[in-house]
């Protein structure tokens, strides 16, 4: 259970990025979470509702994009998703595999209100 630390980091990124753009509010946050990142949405949402209070990002909607873990066989090139237990290549039984997707753990974008575009008059 490290969702609190993770949620705090999401809040830090969102408020930093919003402040850098002189936004008055963050309305939405888009996150990519790979299957291998072991994070539970409901826990992040629970902590979010508590720790975002009183910040620029209070009440922002969290959007989770889950990315399945995908492997590629280095011997025959077959690609397959990790659905249940990790297995050798389904085509050639090789155990020479590489993980090509599923370790993502990032904030992709935020949606902000009142962005101030650099205006030479102001």
């Amino acid at each position, binding site marked *: *259970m*490290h969702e609190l*630390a*993770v949620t705090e*980091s*999401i809040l*830090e*990124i969102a408020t930093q*990025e919003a402040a850098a*753009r002189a936004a008055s509010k963050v*309305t*939405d946050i*888009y*996150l990519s979470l790979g299957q*291998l*990142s*072991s994070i539970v949405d409901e826990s992040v949402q629970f902590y979010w509702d508590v720790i975002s209070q009183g910040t620029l990002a209070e009440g922002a909607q969290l959007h989770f994009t889950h990315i399945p*873990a995908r*492997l590629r066989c280095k011997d025959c090139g077959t690609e397959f998703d*990790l659905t249940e*237990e*990790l297995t*050798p290549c389904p085509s050639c039984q090789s*155990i*020479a*595999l*590489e*993980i090509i997707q599923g*370790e993502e*753990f*990032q*904030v*992709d*974008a*935020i*949606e*902000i*209100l*009142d*962005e101030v575009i650099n205006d030479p008059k102001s």
Partner: protein
Amino acid sequence: MTQKVEVVRKILDSNDRLAAGNQARLDDMNVFSLNLMASPGAGKTSLILQTLSHLPPEIKVGVVEGDTAPVTIDADKIAEQGAPVVQINTGGQCHLDAVLLELGLNQLPLEDLNLVIVENVGNLICPASFKLGTHANVLVASIPEGDDKPYKYPNIYRGLDVLVINKIDLLPYLDFRMDYFKQGVEMLNPGLQIFEVSCKTGEGIPAWIDWLKAHIPAKAQAAKE
């Protein structure tokens, strides 16, 4: 009007930056460092004790003990061997992070040390995500935990530099399929350096010590001055 702006930042970005700072600090002092991870009871403290008693006396070791509660059982055992030890109480948090390690390093005489061993909190999930800035991630897996752990906790096996399989003296008594276990490890982390040891009997410890000695840099005079 709302506007969607691309950010694309790793969630644990700020921890990663602090971790890089910890590593730079250790490098400046010519100190090699290990992040020792494992489930509770796998033998992290036992491996530290074996390591302390097998390393030659000229290699000075400091230990950072991560614990979720202010219980000094592990730290006391290490202090008995004469190594400087710092206890970091995470206050219930399930892992150490780069900030906590920085606090730990502040309390160690780095200028006098060759090696820092960080004993992370016993847990196979959370420590995998938080870089500390140590030079090598080491997992202690033990035979009684079962041979399915790489399949159940793939993330921690992904980030390893060394795997120590402990309690091999129990192999005759348990249904642990070493081939199946190692196949899982190989699929996640090809070519991973593996040591099979028993911290109880001392079997396999010399090979681990040799690996460690090969990675500890000579203490440059410049760092001491």
